[in-house]
């Protein structure tokens, strides 16, 4: 069994920062919106570190907590050696775990946080994840100002940072989780990450339903991370053909962030895409009670892509229940 059931783990609070393009998109009223990519720092890398720090500090302040009240800090991002999270964590005296599963970071962090907190009274975990479009461009693609022509399957790394507080009480119960397996369907194209990740998302969804003996209709919403328009279509088709599951309650975070005229190809990507949509659209709408979030990560590095290796993908699922 690849799944975990939690007894007492809740999402108590969350804080979101959205970048300059994201705040002009479909979702409005993020907790904090940035006007420029530098965020008053010298480099984009430092700007992303600052985003994580602000999120951590805002969460502490809003909930009247001090560093000592947080027992675990779990952070993840896209930068090499997950340096953004580590450089942000150096400012706090909180035991730190750095996680990497590309754009599935947030779900992995929530899963770990819930496991660490579950059943242990007064324990709190703070999970934080971020991505910065220009840092990702520089690391994974071309220099920032280089106008490379991109195919329509490309996704656009969202800029932003989201943190969440996991503890023993709250209104959103973290009910269960399924840890995904790495899936590689032989796709080599790093500009089509939706196609790389779709089978991994389908596999973890199937595993989750098997382990918990449920079917898709038991959830009001199945929210995938950043499959994008191409990946979402592939995900649904793959589910139908391989596992004979069809669903009407699927939403993909990637396609909910930007407007069509913002010209972001197949939609948003990055670990921050899913939590931005979860906390600022899905939960604020009060329309859904049982939500399954599926983080999707394409685990490639430019080196392996250049060596013509096919790209492995990972997906983790966490089921949430909104208590009324």
């Amino acid at each position: 069994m690849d799944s975990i059931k939690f007894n007492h783990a809740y999402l108590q609070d969350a804080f979101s920062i959205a970048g300059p393009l994201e705040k002009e998109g479909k979702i409005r009223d993020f907790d904090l919106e940035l006007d420029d990519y530098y965020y008053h720092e010298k480099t984009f890398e430092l700007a992303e570190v600052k985003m994580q720090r602000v999120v951590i500090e805002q969460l502490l302040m809003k909930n009247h907590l001090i560093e000592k009240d947080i027992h675990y800090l779990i952070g993840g991002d896209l930068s090499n050696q997950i340096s953004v999270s580590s450089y942000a964590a150096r400012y706090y005296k909180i035991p730190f775990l750095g996680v990497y599963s590309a754009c599935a970071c947030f779900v992995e962090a929530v899963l770990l946080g819930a496991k660490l907190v579950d059943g242990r009274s007064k324990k709190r975990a703070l999970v934080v994840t971020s991505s910065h479009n220009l840092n990702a461009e520089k690391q994974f693609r071309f220099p920032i100002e280089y106008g490379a022509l991109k195919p329509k399957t490309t996704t656009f790394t969202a800029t932003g940072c989201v943190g969440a507080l996991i503890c023993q009480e709250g209104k959103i119960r973290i009910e269960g989780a399924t840890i995904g397996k790495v899936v590689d369907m032989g796709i080599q194209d790093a500009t089509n990450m939706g196609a790389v990740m779709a089978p991994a998302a389908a596999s973890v969804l199937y595993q989750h339903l098997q382990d918990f003996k449920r079917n898709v209709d038991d959830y009001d919403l199945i929210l995938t991370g950043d499959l994008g328009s191409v990946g979402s279509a592939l995900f649904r088709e793959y589910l139908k053909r391989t596992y004979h599951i069809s669903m009407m309650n699927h939403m993909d975070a990637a396609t909910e962030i930007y407007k069509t005229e913002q010209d972001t190809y197949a939609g948003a990507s990055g670990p921050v895409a899913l939590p931005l949509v979860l906390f600022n659209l899905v939960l604020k709408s009060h329309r859904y009670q049982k939500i399954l979030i599926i983080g999707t990560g394409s685990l490639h590095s430019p080196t392996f892509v250049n060596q013509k290796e096919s790209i492995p993908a990972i997906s983790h699922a966490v089921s949430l229940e909104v208590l009324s």
Partner: protein
Amino acid sequence: MNQDEYQKLVKQFTPKERKFKNAVVSFLVGGCIGFVGQIFVTILTENYHLGMIEASSWLCLFLILFASVLTALGFFDTWVTKGKAGFIIPTTGFAHSITSAALDYKKEGLITGLGSNFFKLAGSVILYGIISAFFFAVLGVIFYG
């Protein structure tokens, strides 16, 4: 579903690129740059009595400056995404690739950042440009003496 079947499915779901439209746009944009360049060369040769080679060199320098300044100001990448290869094929694309890499790495030091990454994209053009120039020169000598 096995890997081959999945890859077929991916192909089926991948949106088609509008190659013909892109080619036409590139042709027109590239053509316009060529047209402006020709006016520039004509002015230099007619009004300033420069030779053809000198005038072409000035044009090249002008295009490089034009692309680099616009890259630094942040316009050029948007233009390239709209004007396609029309902006890349002339010297402008080469200058653009160097300036954009330089901008990216200037904060990482003059040697370890800017210096080592300056030709990140343009390196291939220079290397294979020189190699092919060598072979074409050899062919030229063989056929035309």
